[in-house]
């Protein structure tokens, strides 16, 4: 038996070492996690195409789910009247997440590739999911009778600006039918396309009779019919079969900085789309509330409009998030836009979409 003094010293030494090791362990490896502050600049348009966005925003899914991942998220909402102005701000770095038309998203990627070729870097858009297909319609003045595309000769049609889905589809469809669309000053055109920045302008032009028709996304066609400003003549789904319309896209910067949040957004998007199918009435309520705020209408009216959208579905909206299903449609858009001179480089499908995030989410099941 060693002397008592030695035993005491040894005991104190061992205890101290063990205590330090434990403390070190906790300090280094098991720190209580501080929530990271993140601001997400989230953009969309006042259309029911972006209903998934409205659902996740109104139910604050992003904030609550992100908290579980250790983030303190502030969502800054940025509404835009149409795609091209939205992409303009995206390219300036002012937007992280977009619900936007496929065509503007394509033009954003084309712009990124163009800049890369010239040796400079600008924000890159990555499509991570699809919001819906079809969903726009050509609405004619009530007194006009629609008798096929030829009956539009000599007419003035207002649509979203060049670079938007509506513009691309309009020109593409007219050209495929042997017609010559052009802007108001073009001496070679037999149909005149007037670009306006958003749906409210379109409604005003149609109601005052300053244009003969508008090509516009839902719910504007339904609003026009209810208010007797116009009649739906053709849906975009009939103009271009199976065309993807709106997509969910994030910036590469956002994806690289917060890959888990990007994945979360896709997951919530899928959840929101399921919510639309399974809880349609509540989804309509959320959409009505948001759209009445954005359009300045009273909520009873907007609710009625959305009910018409879902029951009649004259614009043939189909909600489906799977990005691989849209590959052909996107390629078709790329070619059409390139031929129209709207983009100068043709992005490949891999430049446009990231399918892996969606596949991961589906595999993890729900």
């Amino acid at each position, binding site marked *: 038996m060693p002397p008592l003094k030695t035993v005491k010293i040894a005991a104190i030494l061992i205890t101290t070492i063990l205590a330090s090791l434990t403390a070190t362990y906790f300090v280094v490896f098991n720190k209580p996690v501080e929530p990271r502050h993140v601001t997400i600049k989230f953009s969309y348009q006042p259309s029911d195409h972006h209903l998934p966005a409205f659902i996740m925003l109104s139910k604050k899914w992003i904030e609550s789910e992100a908290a579980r991942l250790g983030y303190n998220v502030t969502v800054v909402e940025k509404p835009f009247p149409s795609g*091209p102005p939205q992409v303009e701000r995206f*390219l300036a770095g002012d937007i992280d997440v977009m619900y936007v038309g496929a065509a503007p998203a394509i033009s954003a990627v084309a712009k990124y590739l163009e800049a890369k070729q010239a040796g400079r870097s600008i924000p890159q858009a990555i499509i991570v999911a699809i919001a819906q297909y079809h969903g726009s319609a050509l609405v004619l003045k009530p007194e006009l009778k629609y008798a096929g595309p030829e009956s539009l000769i000599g007419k003035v049609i207002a649509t979203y600006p060049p670079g*938007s889905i509506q513009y691309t589809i309009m020109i593409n469809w007219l050209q495929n039918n042997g017609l010559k669309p052009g802007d108001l000053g073009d001496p070679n055109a037999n149909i005149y396309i007037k*670009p306006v920045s958003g749906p409210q302008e379109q409604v005003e032009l149609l109601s005052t009779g300053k244009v003969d028709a508008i090509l516009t996304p839902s719910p504007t066609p339904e609003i026009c019919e209810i208010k007797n400003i116009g009649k739906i003549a053709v849906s975009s789904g009939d103009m271009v079969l199976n065309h993807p319309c709106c997509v969910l896209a994030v910036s590469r910067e956002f994806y690289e900085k917060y890959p888990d949040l990007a994945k979360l957004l896709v997951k919530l998007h899928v959840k929101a789309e399921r919510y639309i199918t399974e809880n349609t009435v509540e989804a309509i309520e959320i959409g009505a509330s948001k759209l009445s705020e954005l359009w300045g209408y009273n909520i009873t009216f907007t609710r009625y409009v959305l009910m018409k959208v879902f029951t009649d579905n004259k614009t043939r909206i189909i909600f489906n998030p799977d990005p691989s299903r849209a590959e052909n449609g996107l390629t078709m858009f790329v070619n059409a836009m390139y031929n129209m001179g709207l983009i100068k480089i043709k992005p490949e499908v891999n430049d446009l979409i990231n399918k892996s995030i969606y596949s991961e989410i589906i595999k993890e099941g729900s």
Partner: protein
Amino acid sequence: MKFRYNLLSLLSIIIFILLWELASEAQVLPAVLPKPIDVAYSIHRLMDKIPIYTYHSISHFIAGFTIALIVAIPAGALSGWYYSVRAFVKPIVEIIRPIPPIAWIPFVLISFRSDFEASAIIIFIGSFFPIFTNTFLGFSNVPLEYVEIAKTLGAGDLDILIKVALPSSLPSILSGIRTGVGVGWMCVVAAEMFGPPGLGLQIMNMRYLHDISAVTAYMLVIGVIGFTLERIVRIVEIKTLKWQKGFVRQV
């Protein structure tokens, strides 16, 4: 002397283009500044469309500017000459003048049937105020001696207004017209924002396609035309006002 002036001007433009090229290479402003060569290429690419858009923009401009001349010169003249007219007209003009032409777009869109009329009115609003104000100044500053001499020679009020006040005010009126041309032409973008065809509309369209080189190209075209218009007025001014003292000015 004139040779040296032109040489310096040319040098200045060359230096400007070089600095522009450097700035766009260095990416001082993020990805926004297009290179001069890109802009030159855009101009070349758009060369066949530029004349027709110029034609449309100039038509809008001529329509709006002509109305401005017809309204502003008499209004300015009478306001400058008669106290009662001035008291009536001036407060309204002073309140409306600060409103920028762009702000009138909603009004104009509701009130005018055709796009052409609407855009001409926007240009009218831009050109009106310089012409009015300068005409007003001309007429309110007619030297008293001119009027008195005319009276002693037996001239009636109408004669004095037309044969004395008007020629005396002509330098101011022409100066106002020159400024009015400049401002009115600048409004062409505002006037075409909502759809009428022309150079201004193309700037909007190219913007939505994020084609900054094309936007810059159209900006340059607008600038050159504006410069030319003002030069034309300046030449008219000089020819008409050859009686002015000290006319050692360079065109």
